[in-house]
């Protein structure tokens, strides 16, 4: 996977190495299910030895993949996420990540270029100025976190389906894969990528996207849980293989549709 080793424009290499340390999964999280305590009351009640969790984990992964397919069927390209008014915007909109706010990637917008790859006709990298010159759309939608909380925000940017058209993407491909400055990554399904509200966001609340919300670019997907909305994006690939993602690989449901 050579593309992981390429220097990412606009990213401080030292910073990146430090961030990489944070990416190593917590060993206690490698298994979804952690030992005897994980089944708590169930084990007590049934006396069943479900805690030897290989088979339980296998079954749960299987059901999660089944749920991916169910959600893909439920997903509608024409059903829009509810939109809200300026007055509904959550203030302050929460910062969220697996690192603290001052550890968030600090990308130099002048050096930054969006790397393009995979099944596209034109792989020329895009500068921030070029992206800002494309037609912009604004949405005020609800960000729903996998943890349960939600917040309403305002994002402005380029419709992803419009951008994919401009780079000559083969939209028969199954996935769009995003790589981010801190090493985060996400794979999304093509129907969601082509949804009218899926956006390459360059602004938050009518101002340049601040560092805490993903400068220089976030992919805003109001039809998916927050962790499926990558920030600090450095590369976008159109491809047929599912490259997974930071949280998905640790057990969060892959589709995570709303």
């Amino acid at each position: 996977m050579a593309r992981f080793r390429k220097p990412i424009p606009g990213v401080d290499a030292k910073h990146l190495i430090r961030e990489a340390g944070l990416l190593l999964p917590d060993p206690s999280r490698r298994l979804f299910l952690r030992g005897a305590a994980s089944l708590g009351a169930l084990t007590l009640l049934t006396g069943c030895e479900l805690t030897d969790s290989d088979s339980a984990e296998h079954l749960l992964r299987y059901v999660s993949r089944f749920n991916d397919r169910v959600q893909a069927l439920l997903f509608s390209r024409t059903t829009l996420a509810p939109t809200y008014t300026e007055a509904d915007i959550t203030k302050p909109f929460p910062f969220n990540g697996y690192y603290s706010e001052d550890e968030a990637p600090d990308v130099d917008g002048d050096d930054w270029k969006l790397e393009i790859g995979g099944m596209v006709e034109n792989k020329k990298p895009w500068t921030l100025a070029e992206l800002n010159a494309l037609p912009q759309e604004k949405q005020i939608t609800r960000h729903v976190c996998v943890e349960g909380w939600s917040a309403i925000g305002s994002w402005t940017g380029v419709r992803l389906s419009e951008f994919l058209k401009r780079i000559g993407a083969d939209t028969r491909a199954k996935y769009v894969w995003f790589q981010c400055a801190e090493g985060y990554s996400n794979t999304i399904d093509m129907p969601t990528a082509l949804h009218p509200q899926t956006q390459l966001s360059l602004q938050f609340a009518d101002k340049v996207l601040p560092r805490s919300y993903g400068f220089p670019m976030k992919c805003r997907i109001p039809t998916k849980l927050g962790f499926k909305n990558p920030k600090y994006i450095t590369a976008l690939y159109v491809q047929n293989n599912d490259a997974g993602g930071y949280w998905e690989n640790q057990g969060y449901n892959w589709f995570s549709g709303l």
Partner: protein
Amino acid sequence: MSAASEQIDARISEGRAPAIHPAWVRVTHWINALAMIVMIGSGWQIYNASPLFNFAFPGAITIGGWLAGALLWHFAAMWVLAVNGLVYLVLGLATGRFSRKLLPITPGAVVSDTKAALTGHLSHKDLSVYNAVQKLLYLGVIITAIVIILSGLSIWKPVQFQAFTAVFGGYETARYVHFFAMATIVAFLVIHVVMALLVPRSLRAMVTGR
């Protein structure tokens, strides 16, 4: 002794008396019990990731170990709960068991049976007939289960099922509805288990049918 009652006695001794709970009630009851426990235990772990109130559930009584594990259990057990619940509702309505066992519920009977229950005078001699308090609790928990499933769907899919979400007052309100429906079911569960232990014959009836 009349001929009819002799006949019933004979059938009881041969083990052919009409069951208090038919097999489909017993099977769906225990599947539901297991699914509910998994849903509640994993739901408590999910709640802990972003508590609605100023408390969290102790980790030892939750299921899943951490948020991702709990979500996997929750969204797996939901299928068991929903399919089993649907079978139970369809059979309950189609066989007439619901209307025969759970209706009518009159306020007068609820008041007098509650008084009798609290003073220890409520009879459990005939387990095949529910008193008014039982009718109210059983019907109440069925309705609560429907509310918890619909509010759960509206939290899980606030875009695709946004009409549901709107019925529950929007995403954030639906989370509270889902929580209080859980609290209601847990309160029922406590009373239900205590009563089953106080009247062990009722527990046997739910296992063997008699």
